[in-house]
């Protein structure tokens, strides 16, 4: 099997995913094409040598519709021979895109591909692609559908994570992210989003609240209590009859932020590395996606991580650093408990609670984050994983070369 080598990873800063957010004025195809442009320029490649661009996008409708990957290729003015495909594995779409690009290289069917993702949550709002899973009565009944926030609270209830536990986790995410920014730990990957006049639009992750404390979080009302009272708690209890009630512990401050952003990872074989004299920063050791119980929905990361570890003949203790997407604080707490990993190895530069989670892009973003950090600390192995809607998990293991 050919090694899938990671040559580069870039991302935009994350803008607040609302009308007042800095990236709201930038259409998602522009975010994606800026990432592609950056990969081209930074690595000085002739795009004719790129086989495919795989981009994750969770709401592929409206201006994110009609295969935004191919559209971004055209907008980036890449060679017309570069194909593009948009993929959706909900929150892990960006990582799935990287895995697909890697698979193209590993199988020998491509020499160089891009995996990445894009989501403008301020312009194409959460939930706008609808779906049978939640709206088709037959499907929603049979799947015991509940919205993800209810699942997160269900998970916290079932595994006894208190409001204090999840808030403490959120405070640490903010602290770590703010420290990472202070020390410019993201500088290698981050590109400035500029307009057509080369004027900067956004250069930092603007969602962060470094001054977050237990007290400031304590003032926030649970986000999903009302929703739960309108039937969803009961549906969750139909599936989990051992629970008397659902404790609502998640709120805006301990859940991932709604943001805009895009990311891309340049992956290729040794031949391409040699041709362009690119340093292979890491290789993809293994990757895996799994399905898990869909109502609690968010327990997939541990299963997918274990599957990827098995494929790589590794144990959790062989991994130096973990990036586990902070969709909700309880998801990360559960992941660390199941794999028995210390918090000091997980999300060391903060995560989506502090920085935001642009759905389709996050997987590729945090892969770049862990690669930069492995280099900074001169460590070897990293595992990236995300919980996924409808009960799935996706994980990727990388190893520096």
């Amino acid at each position: 099997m050919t090694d899938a080598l990671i040559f580069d990873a870039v991302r935009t800063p994350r803008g607040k995913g609302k009308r007042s957010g800095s990236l709201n004025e930038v259409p998602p195809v522009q975010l994606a094409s800026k990432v592609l442009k950056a990969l081209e320029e930074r690595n000085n490649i002739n795009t004719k040598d790129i086989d495919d661009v795989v981009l994750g996008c969770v709401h592929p409708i409206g201006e994110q519709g009609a295969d935004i990957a191919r559209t971004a290729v055209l907008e980036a003015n890449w060679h017309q021979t570069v194909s593009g495909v948009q993929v959706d594995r909900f929150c892990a779409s960006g990582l799935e895109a990287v895995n697909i690009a890697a698979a193209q290289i590993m199988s020998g069917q491509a020499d160089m591909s891009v995996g990445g993702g894009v989501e403008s949550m301020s312009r194409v709002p959460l939930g706008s692609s609808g779906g049978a899973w939640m709206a088709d009565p037959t499907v929603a009944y049979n799947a015991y559908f509940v919205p993800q926030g209810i699942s997160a609270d269900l998970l916290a209830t079932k595994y006894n994570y208190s409001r204090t536990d999840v808030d403490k986790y959120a405070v640490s995410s903010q602290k770590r992210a703010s420290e990472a920014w202070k020390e410019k730990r993201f500088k290698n990957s981050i590109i400035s989003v500029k307009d057509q006049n080369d004027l900067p639009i956004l250069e930092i992750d603007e969602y962060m609240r470094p001054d977050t404390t237990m007290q400031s979080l304590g003032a926030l009302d649970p986000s999903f209590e009302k929703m739960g009272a309108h039937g969803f708690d009961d549906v969750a209890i139909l599936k989990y009859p051992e629970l008397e009630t659902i404790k609502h512990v998640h709120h805006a401050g301990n859940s991932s932020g709604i943001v805009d952003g895009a990311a891309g990872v340049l992956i290729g074989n040794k031949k391409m590395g040699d041709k362009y004299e690119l340093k292979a920063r890491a290789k993809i050791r293994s990757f895996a996606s799994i399905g898990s119980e869909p109502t609690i929905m968010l327990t997939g990361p541990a299963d997918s991580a274990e599957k990827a570890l098995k494929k790589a003949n590794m144990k959790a203790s062989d991994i130096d650093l973990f990036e586990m997407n902070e969709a909700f604080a309880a998801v990360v707490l559960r992941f660390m408990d199941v794999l028995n990993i210390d918090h000091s190895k997980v999300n060391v530069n903060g995560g989506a609670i502090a920085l935001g989670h642009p759905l389709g892009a996050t997987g590729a973003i945090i892969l770049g984050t862990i690669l930069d950090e492995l280099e900074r600390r001169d460590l070897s192995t990293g595992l990236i994983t995300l919980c996924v809607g409808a009960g799935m998990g996706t994980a990727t293991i990388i190893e520096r070369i």
Partner: protein
Amino acid sequence: MNLNNIKINIDDDNIINLIIKPSTLKINNEVINDFQKTIDYIASEKSVTGVIISTENYNYNFNYDLNYLYSLSEPALIFENITKLTKSLRKLETLGKPIVSLISGPVSLGGLEIILHSHYKIADAESDTQFIFKNLKYELIPSIGASQRLPRKIGIEQSLELFLNDKIINTEEALKIKLIDKISPKDKLIEHAKEYILNNLIAVQPWDDKKHINKQPTPFSNDNLGYFISKIAMLHSNTSDHYPSVKTLISSVYEGLNTDMNSGLKIEARHFTWLLGNIETKSMIGTLILYNSKHKIKESEITIFRKSFIENYAAEGVRLLINGVTATMIENAGKRLGFELGPLAMADKIEIQSILPQLDSTDASVAALIRSMQKDKRNGLSSNKGFYDYEEGFRKHIWKGLPELIPPAEQQQDIGEVENRLIYSAVNDIFYNYIKYSELQDPLEYDYIAINNIGLPKWTGGPFTWVKQNNINNYIKNNEIYSRTLGSRFIINKKIIEVIQNKVF
């Protein structure tokens, strides 16, 4: 033309009066054929200017002849016959000629289905005209297009709320939501109908009108998407996994409103056909509709049965608790079955003291539990504490001290097992009293009383129907297993088995 169920005559303006003769029409094979013949004739008469639909009293108390539907037995035949009727009526609706319906008095679901085919609906101002949306939960969904036409006419949310909340609306309300078009004095109904026809010689339903087709409501339009998502959860939580007509109706609306009327009608008919064959539906229809209760059982006996039933249900909850099942599982099992309350909440409501005679006081765990609860003055709802803690009469949560008193088993059984035990115990209690008090009475009447007056969930169709529908051999076998470890309340009287085996349900 004068058929058994429908007659028509033509007036000087070439307007056809289509009179459905029985205002309490039972739709069966003959009715379906009469509609087909009538409508084929109307379609063949090119000179017809319009059609006025009415019944002799302007009532539309129409329903299916359920014996006819069940006699078809094969899903393919049921679907075929329903389709025959929907196609005939669809032909009338799409003639391009104005169809008017005249309404006075009660309109049942079946009547509404017919009326919805007309382009203009006029209701009598003087009579107590009512549109009755009732009992969908226990019965059948529409099959002649009401789940398709009503949402297209008055909106998705409005229609589903009418269907699912047992609403009865009068003419003013019907006019306000545009279910009807005009209210008129009774003696002017025909005049107004003719006036409409002569002023609108070409008539097209909004769902067939190319100019308006894009304005039709769809499940994925902004307001409706959120409504569907939350309504599904609400309905699912209210019905657990019982009462299939609820899910079937909302599915029919969802799936049908994403397409056109012709496909929508097929979608609805398929759901209806499936529902008709569903065991719970059959059970409920058998007991609630096909059985006309004359209530030979005395009220005093019913009161005794109800008291026994409730005490037994609460006591079974306590027994499960003693057997190591968590209080949460016991309560959730009761809710999933569709009982009014969980067994332990019921125990609190009727006072824990009152179930003591049902429990084995020689059992050390029972004695210890009751002693501790009495010592703590946990008498039930009246003392604001029992198996639950209460605040001003509202349940707060299950008493936190309970697991210390009766440690739950490490390995909890599946919720289905707990549900089974509760329902077996409840059914057996009703049988016990049947033998004791009213051995010679009609088991179907017992079924009726059990779900209407005693408190057995309606989806069972009553104890006899439930046992019959769920295979009597399973019932015998499971009771044998229960009786070995749990005692005599699971030993079935042979007479019960004989009754079930001999009785046609």
